[in-house]
């Protein structure tokens, strides 16, 4: 019998029952809840008179809607100016109190974007099944978890049964070999992957990221990559457990206690794909060839190297792609063939569950080195992913580096990643953003998003347009 992939192992370990039709009932170890996709689930539970199955599996924190400006934030929930946002955050608080679900509330030092908070607190551990009503739950696969986003009906299903009815995905391995060049980061790796396989390249698959580049990568970097598995069409992204994973987990507040640790570590060490495991699809990329990436269009696959230009219609592989590009040129206000380094910017956003961890902020701060944000930049903001990241960055003096350069130092949350709060782009403004989606209107009606790494965003802030961070 062929060996098992990491995904096979995680799947098998959580299969409660197999059903006749080929689907399975899968047990969920950890459920993360936020204010946007949970209210209707709690309501459904109450209407059906059902109780949560295992309360201790759930953890909640408001992240999408919370204001990031310190003044507004310091007043807590009641200080949220937008009353619709406030109602959503209040509703989460009320539901957590009513159902007795643990919550890091708005000004708890542990509050933050769930995909930053979960691993940071040790609430997400290797080998777990992790779900959340948010597609970027794929992030947690960096710890060797089976993690994916779900819809609100499934949030309710997990609350009520601690299980999900699932069909197994196919196995895909993406191997990135060799070593990354200086100035090239995990964000560039994942953007390069999406550029290669497309936004539907991973549909129906669970992706395991493997190869030298991932072995050498930090946990933060692995989270950045797994985070964007969904932009490649896969609900699940994963990296095998190794020393980096174990070292990361050790000592986290909710990690297994000392008496549980040896058993846990022994189990986690089995979480990798066997040498003879078979993948349905394998993609190989030479890591040494990856350059810093910039998205030029309105889909995360519309990405090129910083040294390149906006592609021309004749380069499209088919009519559908060409159509998409033609619409993207117009929406983005760009000319086919225009050099990426000629794109002038209006705003800079460093944050989101993709790139708001301490390493990301260090990367960006290292580029700044006492320089100033360019005059044409209307606003440059740094939004830490969690209260803990913010405190750590402040302890390292990164906040001062940012503010002296002209960045604003904000309170943790999703912020301008999806612009549900006051942080957003004005129509036609170009933004260098470390987030994960450049869809039309994502960062504000008519706004033009360019996805980049934190280092590239910082360099762009100083130059006022895109520049190659390697030669900056």
């Amino acid at each position, binding site marked *: 019998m062929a060996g098992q992939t990491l995904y096979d192992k995680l799947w098998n370990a959580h299969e409660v*029952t197999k059903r006749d039709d080929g689907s399975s009932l899968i*047990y969920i170890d950890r459920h993360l809840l936020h204010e946007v996709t949970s209210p209707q689930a709690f309501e459904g539970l109450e209407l059906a008179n059902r109780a949560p199955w295992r309360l201790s599996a759930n953890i909640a924190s408001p992240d999408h809607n919370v204001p990031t400006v310190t003044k507004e934030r310091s007043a807590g929930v009641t200080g949220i100016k937008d009353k619709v946002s406030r109602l959503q955050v209040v509703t989460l608080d009320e539901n957590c109190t009513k159902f007795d679900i643990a919550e890091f509330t708005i000004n708890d030092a542990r509050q933050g974007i769930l995909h930053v908070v979960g691993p940071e607190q040790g609430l997400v551990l290797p080998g777990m099944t992790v779900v959340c009503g948010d597609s970027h739950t794929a992030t947690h696969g960096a710890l060797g978890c089976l993690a994916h986003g779900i*819809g609100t009906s499934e949030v309710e*299903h997990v609350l009520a049964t*601690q299980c999900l*009815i699932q069909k197994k995905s196919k196995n895909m391995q993406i191997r990135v070999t060799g070593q990354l060049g200086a100035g090239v980061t995990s964000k560039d790796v994942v953007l390069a992957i999406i550029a290669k396989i497309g*936004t539907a390249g991973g549909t129906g698959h669970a992706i395991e990221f493997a190869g030298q580049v991932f072995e050498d990568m930090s946990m933060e970097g692995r989270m950045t990559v797994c985070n964007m598995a969904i932009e490649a069409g896969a609900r699940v992204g994963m990296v095998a457990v190794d020393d980096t994973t174990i070292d990361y987990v050790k000592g986290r507040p909710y990690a297994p206690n000392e008496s549980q640790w040896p058993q846990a570590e022994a189990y986690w060490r089995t979480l990798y794909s066997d040498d003879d495991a078979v993948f349905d699809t394998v993609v190989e990329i030479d890591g040494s060839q990856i350059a810093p990436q910039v998205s030029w269009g309105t889909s995360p696959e519309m990405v090129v190297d910083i040294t390149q230009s906006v592609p021309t219609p004749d380069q499209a592989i088919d009519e559908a792609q060409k*159509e998409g590009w033609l619409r993207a040129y117009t929406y983005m206000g760009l000319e086919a063939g225009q050099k990426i380094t000629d794109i002038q910017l209006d705003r800079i956003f460093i944050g989101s569950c993709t790139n708001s961890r301490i390493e990301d902020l260090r990367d960006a701060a290292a580029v700044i080195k006492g320089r100033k944000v360019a005059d044409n930049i209307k606003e440059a903001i740094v939004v830490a992913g969690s209260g803990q990241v913010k405190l750590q960055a402040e302890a390292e003096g990164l906040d001062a580096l940012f503010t002296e350069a002209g960045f604003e130092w904000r309170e943790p949350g999703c912020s301008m990643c999806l612009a549900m709060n006051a942080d957003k782009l004005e129509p036609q403004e170009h933004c260098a953003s470390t987030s994960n989606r450049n869809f039309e209107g994502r960062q504000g009606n008519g706004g033009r998003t360019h996805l980049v790494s934190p280092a590239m965003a910082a360099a762009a802030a100083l130059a006022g347009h895109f520049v190659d961070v390697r030669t900056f």
Partner: protein
Amino acid sequence: MQAYNTQTGIVCPLDRANVDTDQIIAKQFLKSIKRTGFGVNLFDDWRYLDEGYPGQDPSTRVINPDFVLNKPRYQGATILLARRNFGCGSSREHAPWALSEYGFRTVIAPSFADIFYNNCFKNGMLPIVLDEAIVDTLMKATVANEGYELTADLERQVVITPTGEEYAFEVDAFRKHCLLNGLDDIGLTLQQSDAIKDYEHKMMQKTPWIFNDVRA
């Protein structure tokens, strides 16, 4: 959940690939804590020329006459015909809620993003995957013939054209069963409570740390 059996209706052609859930229902409308009220803001950025925000009076909106949904000939459409990778991006179930409230209970495309596909079934909607070439044919037929209607027959798993051609589609047996009977799958899962409890007992030995109480 509303049962889905056979549905015949006007087809609305949305000739774009990679339509994401941010487009289907924009983030500003996700602030609602209800399951309803999203239909008027379906495809808001494309459908209206002014900026949409929650709680607007729909009668004051500036309609974009060029957007397909606003064309008189597609009023009352119940079947949405789209290009590949429909529903990509965010997991928001508000997307199927908005489509269904607007009146679409069937979406036909060459491929769907996984989470969106799954979310449809939870809301009495049927996403149908047909070959790229077939979708292309249907797209052209819809545009060429005003009032073009299709029939989606879930029981027989076929899409039927006005001239009687039939195109077969795949659907999971379990999802089909739930959709045909309008079943709530939480109730079905709870019938397996004993199996879930047995699983938990087994795992409390194997991976006890999973069951640490985070509320402590």
